[in-house]
Structures are given as structure tokens and as C-alpha cells.
């Protein structure tokens, strides 16, 4: 049984042009110890999936799912208290924008100690617990690669560099020793050296603690270096998912192929300064979603059939939704 199990998750948003499906029958699972990449262009709904999992969807949106469960229990039928408990102890999230998710009026030290759950502290007296908190805090800071612990803990978020805040967010997520880490675009804007440090840290946590990770990113290079499996999203629909190796070697969905081809580093034989392959056009807005397969207007393989939504098909553990997948070469 997967630890996180999402089946046919649909999220409808009320817009000036009526209700639109910002997420349309999303499927996603995560086993214990698995690292899954969730990729897709900006606006494809990655962060909305995170919101659905953590339960921060506004009341006036419609959320439905055949299954949205955590360790066998349905998240949708839990009360707010049970859900909060899971979010405090078992699932940790690093949100996309560290600056916006840190409290500007509290020191980084206070915020970090605040996120240590009580069950990790053994001491009976508050001074013992305070000492334990301090020790845990500096241990985790060391892990995420912040050198000047003491100095940094006294500081407010605006007083330190952006990448320190970023690492701080990750430290806060890891200090509660979660079972699942959801990291929403954790490497955006990071230079290569810092990025590799972070990836190494996550890989180590994954190997030593069996931490499961849902890694959301545009950065294919970073993601493919550490993920076991990958789910590709386009415009609120899951278009393909499977083993990372398999998808990279032999994508079946035209969008996955376009995505992989867009990263010059993936293509060794690509001559310097030659054109990169790109799909025409851009991702449509929620207000102008095409009917049927949402890639239709941009897809080089589209045909008449594509105005119908393609069903999910599978070959072993490899799932895809396309009427004319790449392994059926004859069109």
C-alpha cells in the first residue's frame, strides 16, 4: 500500500468565466522511501496539488477525489485536528517562496525551535527541554550547511541572504523528523554549488532515514539526479508517470519528450548554439482551456481524436494519457 495515495483528484475553481478544473483527475502515489519528481510548466497545478495534500484549499473551491489518503487513512474524512497533527509530525512542506513563508517579526532561532514538536523532547523540566531544543536546532543547521549557527539564529529573516533563508526553511521542515517531505521548487534561483549540497543532503536523508520526498521542480537536471520516479503534469492533468530511468530513456507522451528535449544538458550530441527543440505557443490560461487533450493545440502529433480526453493507459508501471503515444510511430 502506498504511503501517499491520490486517485482522480479534481479541483474546481470559480472564475469569471465559470467553474474550471484547475486539477483534472490527478493520480499520484508515493511509497515509503521513494523520491518522486513532480514536474510541469508554471501554472500546471503543482502547487495546487501540494495545497490539496496539506489541506489549505479555500472553502469556496470544489475538491473531489476517489482517494486522497495518507498511510491508508482518508485525508478528506479527517477532522481539522487530526490533519494538523499529521502535518506537524509526519509530513513537512518546504513552500515555494521562503521569504513569504517565514515570519518577518521573529528571529530565525525562535522560528526553528518553534517547529520542533514536543514528542521529540525527552526532558522533564522546561530548562532541560530548552537545552534539547537548542541542541536539535544546531544539529539540523549543521546538516543543511549553515556554518555560523549561533550568529544566524539571532537574526531576523530580512537580515540574512536569500539562500540562508532557504536553508532555514529546509531545516525547519527536517527538524520534526517527518516521514514525507514535500519540497516545492526548492532549488529555484540557487547556484550550482548550493544546489548540489541540498540535493546531497536530501539524498542522504532519504537513504539513512527512509525519508520519502515529493520533489517539485522545473529543474530537470537536479530532479533526475535524485528521483526514482516522475510524474509529469500539463495544464492540471497528469500526462505520464513512471520510473525516472524509463521516462528519460523512452518517454511515451509528446509533452514529456518536449520537456526532456528542452534541457540542453540532456542532449550530449547537441551542437553548441544549435536551436533547442520547443513546442509552439505557451500553456493556455485556466480561462481558455482547450477541450479534450489539453496539449492539443500545441501538440505536433494531434489529430481529430484528440478533442476527446485520452484515457489513462499503462505498460507495466508506466502510465500515460495520449491517443497517439510515441511508441506507436505510425500515425
Amino acid at each position, binding site marked *: 500500500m502506498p504511503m501517499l495515495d491520490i486517485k482522480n483528484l479534481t479541483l474546481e475553481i470559480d472564475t469569471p468565466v465559470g467553474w474550471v478544473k484547475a486539477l483534472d483527475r490527478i493520480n499520484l502515489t508515493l511509497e515509503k522511501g521513494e523520491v518522486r519528481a513532480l514536474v510541469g510548466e508554471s501554472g500546471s497545478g503543482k502547487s495546487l496539488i501540494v495545497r490539496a495534500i496539506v489541506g489549505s484549499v479555500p472553502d469556496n473551491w470544489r475538491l473531489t477525489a476517489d482517494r486522497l489518503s495518507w498511510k491508508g487513512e482518508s485525508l478528506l474524512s479527517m477532522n481539522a485536528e487530526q490533519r494538523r497533527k499529521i502535518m506537524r509530525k509526519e509530513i513537512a512542506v518546504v513552500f515555494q517562496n521562503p521569504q513569504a513563508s517565514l515570519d518577518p517579526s521573529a528571529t530565525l532561532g525562535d522560528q526553528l525551535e518553534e517547529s520542533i514538536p514536543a514528542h521529540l523532547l525527552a526532558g522533564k523540566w522546561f530548562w532541560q527541554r530548552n537545552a534539547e531544543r537548542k541542541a536539535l536546532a544546531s544539529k539540523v543547521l549543521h546538516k543543511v550547511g549553515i556554518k555560523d549557527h549561533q550568529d544566524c539564529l539571532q537574526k531576523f529573516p530580512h537580515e540574512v541572504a536569500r539562500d540562508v533563508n532557504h536553508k532555514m526553511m529546509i531545516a525547519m521542515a527536517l527538524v520534526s523528523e517527518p516521514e514525507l517531505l514535500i519540497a516545492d521548487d526548492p532549488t529555484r534561483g540557487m547556484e*550550482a554549488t548550493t544546489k*548540489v549540497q541540498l540535493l546531497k543532503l536530501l539524498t542522504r536523508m532519504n537513504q539513512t532515514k527512509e525519508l520519502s520526498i515529493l520533489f517539485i521542480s522545473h529543474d*530537470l537536471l537536479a530532479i533526475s539526479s535524485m528521483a526514482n520516479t516522475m510524474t509529469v503534469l500539463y495544464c492540471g492533468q497528469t500526462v505520464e508517470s513512471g520510473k525516472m530511468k524509463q521516462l528519460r530513456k523512452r518517454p511515451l507522451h509528446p509533452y514529456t519528450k518536449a*520537456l526532456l528535449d*528542452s534541457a540542453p*544538458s540532456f542532449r550530449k550530441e547537441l551542437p*553548441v548554439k544549435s536551436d533547442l527543440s*520547443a513546442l509552439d505557443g*505557451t*500553456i493556455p490560461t485556466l480561462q481558455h482551456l482547450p477541450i479534450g487533450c489539453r496539449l492539443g493545440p500545441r501538440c505536433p502529433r494531434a489529430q481529430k481524436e484528440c478533442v476527446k480526453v485520452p484515457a489513462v493507459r499503462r505498460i507495466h508501471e508506466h502510465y500515460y494519457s495520449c491517443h497517439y503515444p510515441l511508441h506507436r510511430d505510425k500515425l
Partner: protein
Amino acid sequence: MTPLLSVRNLTLTQKHRKNWLDKAQIEHFGPIEFDLNRGETLAIIGENGSGKSVLANLLVGAITPTSGTIKLNGEACVLGGHAEHNMKIRMIFQNSNESLNPGITVGSMLQEPLRLNTTLNERERIQKVDDTLRQVGMLRDHKYFYRHMLSDGQRQRVALARALIMEPEVIVADEPFAALDPSVRSQTVNLIMKLQRDLGLGFIFISHNLGIVRHISDRMLVLQHGMVIETGKTETVFNWPRSEYTQRLVASHQSLMPNF
């Protein structure tokens, strides 16, 4: 052959004072020297705060340097103060989203620099706007659009059109690809390379994305603490990085590369 752009001994000294009692801290930037030929691309890399954006701002004349010369086609530019050379060296800002005025149409936004700096009449200006939109792969009708009606990729194109409309010889861009989606990013990269082939445009860009740096740049300039610590042909820098910082950066990038 005279290089398109030739930068010599460019420096900037800034005084910082936290409050009036503090002794002023002095920050030095530079000296910077490089040449750029027609149709060539120079990539600027370095950590946050190493002075990449300062350099970009110096090049387009948004900041006046303390010393140094910038020559365009062998002629010295007047430095700083939004001088004439601004029109020939144009900047695309980090976040094209925020730098586009939401209250006016794409057409009037593009006409603005023409109105201020040329003697073209209304009809000629509109013609120029149409031509430039076509150059960046958009339609004439897009001139009636407001910012909110455009997708990210189209906004990036408008920002590029606004830089191109004064027929510059060099474009300077601060992280032009970071906010773009993979497919839009490839489109933009292709567009810039095409403009370089067609118009001989010089392109200088700042980026953390070493994959793209390696693919499109001819030369690199590595900054650290406001100093150039390494410069050279891109392939040379990637294959034989000399400074410790560059070695680490390249090694990190290589460690992510898939094994085929």
C-alpha cells in the same frame, strides 16, 4: 577587426553608511575588461552579491562608473546618466513581468522610446512596432493587448521587443530565462540566437543555469566579490576551470549531468 563592444578598466567605488555615526564602508567593484564581437554572447556568472547586476547596470548606463571606458564599434560612449549609448546597449530586466506597465497597451509601450528619441511620425512608429513584434514572433494585433492578457512567454517577448525597437547593437539581460517554463525558455533562447545570426546582435546575460550558459555563450566572465576571477572561451572555462570557485561550480554542474 574592431570589437563590437570593448570595456576597459571599468571600476565603481561606492560608500555605504549604515547610520551617520558609522564609518563609511567602501566597496570596490572592478576593474572589468572584456571585448565582445558582433553576434557573440558573453555569459556572466557568479554568486549572489558578486556584482553581476552592478556590471549590467554599468554597461547600460544606469549607474555611472568611477573610472573606465566603454567603446562601441571603437567609439567611446558617454557613461552613465541614461546617455545616448543607452539606445545602442539595451537592458532586459530580471522580471519582465514587473517591468511592463500594466496600464497601457503593448503598442503604446513600444512606441514610447520611439516618441522620445526619434523623429518618426505616428504612422512610421506604428509600422516599426508591427515590424518589431513580428521579429519576436508575435502578431500585429498584440499591440492592442494589455499586460494581463499575455502569457509569461509573450511578456518575455514584449520585453525583448521593447529592447529591440531602438535597433540596439548589444542587449544586456539579467537572468532572462530563470522565470520561464522549459518550452518558453527554449523558444526565447532560439529567438535570441536567430537575432544574433540575422542582425549580428551582441548578447550579454547573467545566469545561474550552466546548461544554457554552455549551450549559447561564446565567452564567460566569472565574478566574485566584485572582481573578475576568470574569463575565457566557454568551452575552455568548462573544460579547464582555473579558479577554485569556478572549479567547484563546474564540478557541481557536471555531477548532475546524466551518464549516458
